[in-house]
């Protein structure tokens, strides 16, 4: 990763020869602080006020706005909500016991485990696959682009994607489309008999009051079918009489603009196509048929003397897809939006690492008879391990700070279910449940979580500079 941290910027710069002789450049890291005076950089050395002039603005800003707040947050986290009384560890206890904060903690654990690993895995796949495709750069730009936009914009984008109504939200439109491909939707949701005279029923299924006889056509009038389900429907035809068979018609017993007699096929009344009709005798289905385009259906002779039933599957409410932003799915849905934004980051870093993997090693493995998958698993991934580690850790730190995306995507009703620490910190400090003691405790907790990374960073940079 040394290449990606310092070298990344240098790579785009002019061809400046690195200062690699041990006596030049800032290589004093190995020695104790005082030892840097050993190698004066100019004949005069640096006067103290010059160094101060260069450093003061940065150190003053960092001291006042980054270092001091750390100390103050630690101190404040031991005070009560008003900031007047000493609260001991009460705030920390609340962080681990309060129901909402515990949800936030739990969600944060899910976030930290799932989001970075999914983004890194996708980044690895994309980086490896695009390597040998000519238009790989175009693909990379498409995947990397979301990084340039704000979490707010991404949040609005995904609010639109996750709209519950499948007519508006693309995620549900696709989901429902796939679902309906495998399970045909009910043809006439909401259709029902006008009254109980001919058809009666409960639970969405309707049954004739009297048994049907072969040769005596059955009429099955319904109302309440939705106009959009009737688009392009033919006019209903009276049932043809067929010797030895049970025939009938299913139609919408409703004449536009009024008129028409109930239970009679009047001119202009529409046929209901594709309705399943079952013949039921003694509670068992003995035959079934589906109504044709003109609403007629024909059942075999075995239906003679049975009751006709229109099963509930004809009238079930349409499948409405998944409630993406409901309580149970809201966190995975927001993680999806995050992965959309950050997979490009992983991809770019991994691609840079991949470019520095020696080709000879891969070719040698291939010559030795390894197939592509083996080369990938046994050579590429181990060589990339340091880069993958840095990407994972970077994303984990980034995820701990996630705030905007959750705040924007989660609708008010499931905001508590989607809660994360950074959001709770905001709510505790400035939002609805003001208790700056608890807010500070969460801040300190976040800081403690990133502390190991800080130490690892420092060790790595020290090592790099000692070379």
């Amino acid at each position, binding site marked *: 990763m040394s290449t990606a*941290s310092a070298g*990344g910027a*240098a*790579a*785009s*710069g*002019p061809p*400046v020869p690195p200062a690699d002789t041990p006596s*030049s*450049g*800032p290589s004093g890291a190995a020695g104790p602080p005082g030892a*840097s005076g050993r190698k004066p950089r100019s004949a005069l050395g*640096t006067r*103290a006020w010059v*160094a101060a*002039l*260069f450093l003061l603005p*940065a*150190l003053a*800003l*960092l001291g*006042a*706005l980054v270092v*001091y*707040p750390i100390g*103050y*947050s630690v101190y*404040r986290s031991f005070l009560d909500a008003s900031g007047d009384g000493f609260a001991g560890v009460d705030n920390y206890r609340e962080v681990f016991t309060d129901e909402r904060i515990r949800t936030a903690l739990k969600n944060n654990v899910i976030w930290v485990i799932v989001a970075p690993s999914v983004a890194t895995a996708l980044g690895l796949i994309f980086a490896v*696959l695009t390597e040998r*495709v000519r238009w790989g750069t175009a693909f990379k730009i*498409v*995947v990397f682009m979301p*990084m340039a936009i704000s979490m707010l*914009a991404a949040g609005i*984008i995904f*609010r*639109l994607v996750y709209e519950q109504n499948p*007519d508006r939200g*693309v995620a549900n*439109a696709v989901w429902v489309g796939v679902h309906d491909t495998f399970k045909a939707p009910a043809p006439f949701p909401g259709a029902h008999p006008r009254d109980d005279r001919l058809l009666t029923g409960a639970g969405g299924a309707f049954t004739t009051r009297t048994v049907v006889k072969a040769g005596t056509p059955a009429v099955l009038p319904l109302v309440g079918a939705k106009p959009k389900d009737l688009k392009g429907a033919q006019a209903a035809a009276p049932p043809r009489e067929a010797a030895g068979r049970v025939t009938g018609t299913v139609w919408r017993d409703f004449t536009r603009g009024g008129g028409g007699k109930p239970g009679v096929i009047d001119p202009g009344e529409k046929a209901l196509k594709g309705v399943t009709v079952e013949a039921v005798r003694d509670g068992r289905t003995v035959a079934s048929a589906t109504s044709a385009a003109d609403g007629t259906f024909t059942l075999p002779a075995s239906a003679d003397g049975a009751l006709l039933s229109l099963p509930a599957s004809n009238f079930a409410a349409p499948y409405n897809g998944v409630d993406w932003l409901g309580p149970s799915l809201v966190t995975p849905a927001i993680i999806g939006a995050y992965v*959309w934004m950050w997979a490009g*980051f992983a991809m770019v*870093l991994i691609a*840079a690492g991949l470019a520095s993997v020696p080709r000879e090693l891969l070719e040698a493995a291939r*010559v030795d008879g390894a197939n*592509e998958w083996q080369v990938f698993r046994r050579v590429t991934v181990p060589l990339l391990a340091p880069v993958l580690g840095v990407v994972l850790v970077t994303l984990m*730190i*980034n995820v701990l*700070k996630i*705030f905007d995306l959750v705040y*924007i995507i989660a609708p008010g009703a499931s905001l508590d279910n989607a809660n994360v620490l*950074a959001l709770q*910190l*905001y709510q505790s*400090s*400035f939002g609805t449940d003001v208790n*700056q003691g608890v807010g500070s405790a969460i*801040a300190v907790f*976040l800081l403690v979580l990133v502390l190991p990374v800080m130490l690892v960073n*420092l060790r790595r940079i020290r090592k790099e500079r000692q070379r």
Partner: protein
Amino acid sequence: MTTLDTAVRAKRSLPARIAGRLGGGVMRLFLVVVGLFWLTPTVGLLLSSFRDKGDIAASGWWKVLSHPAQLTTESYSTLFSNDTVMKSLLTTALITVPATVLVVFVGALAGYAFAWLDFPGRDWWFMAVVGLLVVPVQVALIPVAKLFNSLGIFESTPGVVLFHTAFGLPFAVFLLRNFFAEIPRELLEAARLDGAGEIRLFLRVVLPLGGPAIASLGIFQFLWVWNDMLIALIFADSGNPPITVALQQQVRQFGDNIDILASGAFLSMAVPLAVFFAFQRQFVSGVMAGAVK
């Protein structure tokens, strides 16, 4: 390498080569599908921003593909004639530009000092600054709010600028010190012998040579500040908020404001996207250097 290639090729049998071709086709198809998948959400927002409210409520944006006549620029003209939105874009610019310039300048000063000046404990100071890279901004919210309140710059543009500058500095110092350290020593010695003082040296030699690193840092910081919502939400003047906060206030009634949100979000994305497409290379190197964060 070429000989190796031929050797590999010769070793692979015909079925293996056909399988390889097929695999290549599947791989390309996969990439195309993923690429479209990645574009869809943004395209959805873009198309929605060109529809009127009634159409958005009635049907999904993909209906536009079969009825292009539905497209209208109405919501954009509403937006452009809306003073609040235009003012919030201006506020965003008034925060972003100074915060970017300040980070670059203050960071370059310190980066140069850490690379080429002598002072006691230099390396420890540098380590301390780099250690601050990972401090989450959230840690500073309450203390800095209190501090700014007593200074009278809470809920004002200067406060937001200072906050962004401070939290951009560890990365700026880290990136620029590493870059400046690569400047050939002879160049600086020669300038010093010619009688240039440190300040002249910094302004005339170091800053110009730092171009590429400064560009990366500047773009990175620019996008970060432009896109920020959290800091703006707390520290910006709520009566005259930047665009992210102005839009955020509309999100709670998502359905009612969807037309404004769609076009507003796109307007707020226009600048970052333009920067991204114009300075992709610099952005990538900034991101890579920032991976220590």
